[in-house]
């Protein structure tokens, strides 16, 4: 063996992770300038009175048809007010999600109207218990970082308050940070009050948010009053807002992907300006679902390659602007957990992780987000593990080049019993549900398909995992807020 010397290698470059890039800086610039043109020339349309007043009192031009056109200087000033980071922390303070450039977190989806019944296997309306079960699974799965409701609480006593019940079902069963959906501004206020109970006050929540609020919006370049209500309330209270415009290529957005990027960015920048006018400095994540049409022409496909390409490109644009990002991943148009569900989930998880999207939501959603699947949550957890393994890239050092080991073992030798193998094999991805056994072992254990193995794993987690309980006094205080809303909103 050669003696170690003091020689040094100079001018070395190394990638810490696998590299992934769709757009160049020049292309992003073109898209950005086009989006600024859109805001100056055609603008966006809103009807929310407070928002219109905020714009009227600014340098923006508000026309009689509620169209708001914004000069570039206002946009760039507002961009400077967006915080570069925020941290969501779960209820016991032990699990958090860092929202900052190139940090990636995965989480479930929200508000699916249907689930598959664990006993009968039939598709039925989602309930409080289903949201609880999903939250428990998310609490358990190691690669999911935040929790959304998965299903909708369709059995709430008042159909206008299901969002508060969803919050309770999640917070009771999951110690990870939450991302919540609200019916309207009042719903968000109640959820925020419940979170402030846990955090110990409004200022404490602002410093250390327990949840982000997921706000969906329509295209092209218009927002409903409920959307704006939620945005303005979140901005006032420092609740990180995940602004999610949804557009269908060729229907509510141009059919060309670059055109969708321009429209989505213009929409996002409009929101950045609105929030800044309300109160500068509240955390904002920008995302959206921009995809080709699914069967029903106005709904976007959740599994199309165009969606994944657009999502990753939007993340690159937001990173370039110093903004935080979110996208949909681990969701599918398939009606059950099948080959289509798996392949579409892999594509979206791979693209979004590689792009460095901050919040990747919608894990576990089937049927374009209409049906929630616990089995899909478990499947995607394993997919995320594999994709993360690729994302880690390759470290090239003297230790990993293994030159000494290669010499020692020599031609025809074996590495299996070598200490180097023992030291490094733990770096490999190890599957839990994916099967790599030989045919005999596989057939002896019942010739089970991937799906056959997923369902028992869901049952096992539901039976064996007990999330850290939430203080019963706090639960009672939260229930008071919910009861009040249940009566008021009838």
């Amino acid at each position, binding site marked *: 063996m050669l003696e170690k010397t003091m020689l040094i290698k100079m001018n070395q470059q190394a990638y810490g992770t696998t590299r992934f890039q769709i757009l160049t800086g020049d292309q992003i610039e073109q898209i950005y300038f086009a989006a600024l043109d859109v805001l100056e020339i055609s603008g966006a349309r809103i009807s929310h009175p407070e928002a219109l007043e905020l714009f009227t009192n600014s340098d923006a031009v508000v026309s009689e048809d509620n169209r708001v056109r914004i000069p570039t200087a206002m946009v760039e000033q507002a961009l400077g007010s967006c915080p570069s980071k925020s941290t969501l922390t779960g209820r016991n303070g032990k699990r958090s999600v860092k929202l900052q450039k190139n940090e990636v977190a995965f989480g479930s989806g929200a508000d699916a109207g249907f689930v598959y019944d664990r006993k009968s296997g039939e598709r039925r309306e989602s309930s409080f218990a289903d949201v609880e079960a999903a939250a428990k699974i998310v609490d358990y799965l190691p690669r999911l970082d935040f929790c959304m409701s998965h299903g909708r609480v369709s059995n709430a006593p008042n159909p206008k308050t299901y969002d508060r019940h969803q919050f309770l079902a999640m917070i009771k069963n999951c110690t990870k940070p939450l991302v919540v959906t609200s019916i309207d501004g009042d719903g968000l206020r109640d959820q925020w009050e419940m979170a402030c109970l846990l955090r110990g006050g409004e200022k404490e929540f602002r410093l250390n948010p327990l949840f982000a609020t997921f706000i969906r919006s329509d295209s092209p370049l218009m927002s409903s009053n409920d959307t704006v209500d939620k945005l303005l309330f979140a901005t006032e209270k420092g609740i990180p807002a995940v602004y999610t415009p949804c557009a269908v290529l060729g229907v509510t957005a141009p059919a060309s992907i670059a055109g969708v990027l321009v429209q989505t960015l213009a929409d996002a920048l409009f929101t950045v300006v609105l929030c800044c006018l309300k109160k500068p400095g509240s955390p904002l994540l920008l995302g959206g679902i921009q995809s080709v049409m699914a069967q029903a022409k106005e709904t976007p496909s959740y599994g199309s390659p165009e969606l994944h390409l657009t999502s990753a490109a939007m993340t690159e644009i937001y990173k370039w602007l110093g903004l935080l990002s979110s996208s949909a991943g681990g969701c599918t148009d398939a009606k059950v957990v099948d080959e289509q569900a798996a392949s579409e989930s892999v594509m979206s998880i791979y693209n979004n992780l590689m792009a460095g999207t901050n919040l990747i939501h919608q894990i576990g959603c089937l049927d374009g987000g209409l049906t929630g699947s616990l089995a899909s949550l478990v499947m995607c957890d394993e997919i995320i593990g594999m994709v993360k393994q690729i994302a880690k890239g390759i470290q090239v050092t003297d230790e990993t080049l293994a030159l000494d080991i290669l010499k020692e073992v020599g031609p025809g030798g*074996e590495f*299996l*019993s070598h200490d180097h*193998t*023992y030291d490094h*094999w733990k770096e490999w991805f*190890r599957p839990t549900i994916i099967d790599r056994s*030989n045919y*005999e072992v596989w057939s002896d254990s019942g010739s089970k398909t991937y799906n056959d193995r997923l369902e028992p794993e869901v049952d096992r987690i539901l039976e064996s995992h007990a999330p850290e309980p939430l203080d019963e006094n706090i639960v009672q205080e939260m229930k008071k807020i919910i009861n009040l809303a249940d009566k008021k909103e009838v």
Partner: protein
Amino acid sequence: MSEFLGKMAESLIAGKVDEVTDLTRQALDANVSSKDILEKGLLAGMEVVGKRFKANEMFIPEVLRCAKCMHGAMEILRPLLAETGVETAGTFVIGTVKGDLHDIGKNLVGMMFEGAGFKVVDLGIDLAPAAFVAAIKEHNANLFGMSALLTTTMPKMGETINAIKEAGLRDQVKIMIGGAPVTGEFAKEIGADAYASNAASAVDTGKELLGL
């Protein structure tokens, strides 16, 4: 006594080669019998390792590290065990058939058997039927294992079994086969006693054949 042996099993499961060797010496100094060290320390640890391997909780490189622990301790214990006349679980002759140079799987099986307390005679690779027959006779083996990784060398397994029959040794030895292309069906066809699909299950199958 149990303090040493419990620690020894734990260190073995954790793959700490030097620690297991040290503990073996310390136990002997403290007058723990070599039989107890083997059975209640080392083999107790290896049994846990075998179970965890089967349940996918441990992976081959870890199991091999545990086998190394066992091997290190056995270097010290073997002469003492021979002196006191402690019997091994059995004598296992193993090798790769004629024309086949693949031995990683075969080595693994050998190590696992050693870990289970067997005396293992590993003949190596590319072995003619006559070499196997001679070794079974010489070592008075009660268990014999063959492996093949190539479909082209599989027929050599049947030829070897015939040679064992002709030498009049078939009744004294149980025969197991393994290797990627081999199946349980094939084992029956050529008159072997069993097929095992991996190193951990090979030990269980071998013990079963011998009624241990």
